[in-house]
């Protein structure tokens, strides 16, 4: 077991746009943990991640990463963490190498080192043949791979991933899962959100479930299992109050047939 020093803590973290999207979130993440952060669409997952990565600067409550208050040290926090966004936003008129080169420069990495690293990483992700092709033609999975590399190229000690597996094919999912597990073994902390319950169930040390801006569960899979029985999928629907799936499905069929 790694040392149990918290690297992410929040107390009463709240955020309001027109309506409250996060309500008094209190969470602690220890070094070397993999946290699966799940919840229905619009629950506040992305907002939490954006606050913890210093992208949204105005929030209520306290949040700190690596002992740094995010509100005061956003730049320092950004330097030490990696972030992989959910919407595949990248400058797609560039080639992957150009893009990664640019990202590396923003982290002040040495130029030749970035290029070498970028090419090698692209090779591992089977994009070796596309290093000099513009990304306008890339599929969603290929873009996601480039984004994964862009988020990790500076070797951060904490990694935030927002839906990192969307659009990836089965092989790539297995590869990313394996990368995450090995990163954890190397002492990195990983905080990620996903809709893929079976993946979350398998690789997370701890699972946090958020619904309507509130944390409704926080524990290992075994611990959650005592609150509600079955697979993570069952637990999830149980806790997020969406038990009427089969009724809804029935209705759907009914409307189609009439």
């Amino acid at each position, binding site marked *: 077991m790694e040392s149990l020093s918290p690297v992410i803590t929040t107390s009463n973290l709240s955020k309001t*746009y027109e309506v409250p999207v996060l309500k008094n979130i209190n969470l602690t993440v220890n070094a070397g943990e993999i946290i699966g952060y799940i919840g229905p669409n619009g629950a506040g997952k992305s907002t939490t991640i954006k606050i913890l*990565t*210093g*992208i949204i600067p105005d929030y209520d409550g306290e949040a700190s990463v690596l002992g740094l208050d995010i509100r005061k040290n956003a*730049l*320092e926090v*950004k*330097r030490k963490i990696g*972030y992989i*966004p959910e*919407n595949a*936003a*990248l*400058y797609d*008129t*560039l080639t992957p190498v*150009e893009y990664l080169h*640019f*990202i590396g*420069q*923003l*982290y*002040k990495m040495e130029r030749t080192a970035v290029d070498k690293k970028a090419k090698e990483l692209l090779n591992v992700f089977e994009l070796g043949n596309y290093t000099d092709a*513009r990304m306008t033609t890339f599929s969603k999975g290929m873009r996601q791979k480039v984004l994964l590399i862009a988020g990790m190229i500076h070797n951060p000690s904490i990694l935030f991933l927002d839906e990192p597996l969307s659009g990836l094919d089965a092989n790539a999912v297995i590869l990313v899962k394996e990368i995450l597990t090995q990163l954890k073994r190397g002492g990195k902390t990983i905080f990620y959100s996903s809709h893929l319950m079976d993946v979350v169930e398998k690789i997370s040390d701890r699972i946090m479930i958020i619904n309507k801006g509130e944390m409704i569960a926080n524990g290992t899979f075994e611990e959650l299992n005592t609150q509600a029985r079955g697979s993570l999928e069952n637990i999830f629907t149980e806790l997020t109050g969406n038990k009427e799936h089969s009724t809804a499905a029935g209705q759907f069929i009914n409307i189609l047939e009439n």
Partner: protein
Amino acid sequence: MNTTLLKFLDLFRGLYTRLGADYEQLRAIVDIKLMMDNRRQGVSYRRKTDKEPGNAFIMTLVVYSIFGIFVALALYMIPSFILSMIVFFSYIIVMISMTLITDFSSILLDTSDNTIILPRPVNGQTLFAARLTHILLYLGQLAIGLSLLPALVVIIKYGIVLFVFFLLAIVLSVLTAVFLTNTFYLLVMQFASEEKLKNIINYFQIIMAISIMGGYQILPRVMERMDIEQYIFEVHWWHFLLPPVWMAGAMESIHFHLLDGAHIGLTFCALVLPVTGAYLVNKYLSPVFSKKLGSMGASSEQVQKVKTEKESFVDKISTWITSNPFEQGAFDVIYKILGRDRKLKLKIYPAFGYILVFGLIFMMQGKKDFADTWHNLPNTEYHIVLIYLTFMVLQVALHEIPYSDDFKASWVYFSTPLDKPGEILSGTLKAIFVRLFIPAYLGISIIILAIWGIRAAEDIVFGIFNNFLMLLTLSLINKRHLPFSMAPNVRSQSGNIARAFITFFLIGLLGFAHYLLSKQPMIQWAVMPVQIGLIFLLLRSYKRTRWEQLTL
């Protein structure tokens, strides 16, 4: 070329550092932005090639300096010093403001920076300075290009001393334009949502397209007729509201050593107001602006609702003029997309303005006296020209309708049991006609009735049938494509000129026939049933288009 520009930037490293920006990061951002600009232009100006335009910067300069030829000529030929200067500075300020609003808006409003750069350790000053630098480089390029030839004229005509002040005035004009655009953006953003802002910008782009076209066609013709030889400039109070007049006044004051109150006032405005404006932009407007931009990405998650009242009216029309679900479906969808797709609007809507531009050119052809021509207009048959010029809208629409960025969505035509694709085609045609042609024609009809009176009524009715016949004929002889089903970059350029030529020839022929018939209104009324019968026949044939007849 970019490396040269970046080396130029390196000169200001100290300045940037003092402003609180991280120069290395700033350089990286500017570098990448310039690189993307080059490629973006590659897509919009020519056909898509993966080749890097090595000297895009120079090329753009050349293009802009060609734009500058006209104003350089004006500067050279207009005898009145101050008038020529007013023309030049109006041109510079208008061009730069318009380009800032139209071309640059996409870069300015691009929120992908928020997701790509914001998560990285880049501070606010660096990002802001990088954006500003990017804009300034772009503006510099524009201003240098546009004033290259005019500056040459100034050196030749007025000497090197005035040239130096001339350059200074250009810089001040650019500052003024930046201030004006910034204020414009902020005002609009204050009252309109992001979506509305994009619509407003879209309309500006359309107006810009029309006015560039119109300006180049009409202004020289107007100037030929104006008595610019005898032009005498008097300063009025409202001149102090017009930045080009400040600049021109300052130039005149320097060149002729005029030191009266009005000139000193104008020179003062020219010097002080742009600088004050720039200060205000930097100090107060920019932060508000950045904040607004920052919040844009966040608000885009809200789903935009479309007003539904208007649609029920469309539904009524569509049930009335279409005969089956396929046709009606196509009509409804195409009708709505024609009104909403900004890219499409930018391509088609300028044609509305071209009608008037070309109409004016036709009427002014060979005439010396504008007022006289105007009074004589009701006795001429020029309204027939207007009637057939309206077809331009349809011509452009026909050309654009097969293409869309969302061409992939056309899979629905293939996955549904669509047995007669002709129904889709005829629905599309009707939608184009109702959405684009009818409003344009209504406008033209009002103008015609106002000038030519009720005697033109039968020409208007006769003309609308002819226009629809023309639309049908062209649709029948052209390759038939399903609407919005092809990628914009596969568009074949071959045969376009020939096709346009044939179209204009046919339209001309039709117009001439109409002109001959217009002498006998009775025959005109008699021909109308024939027209309607023909429309019915052709439409039926078009509706029966089979899959084999389509070019996919």
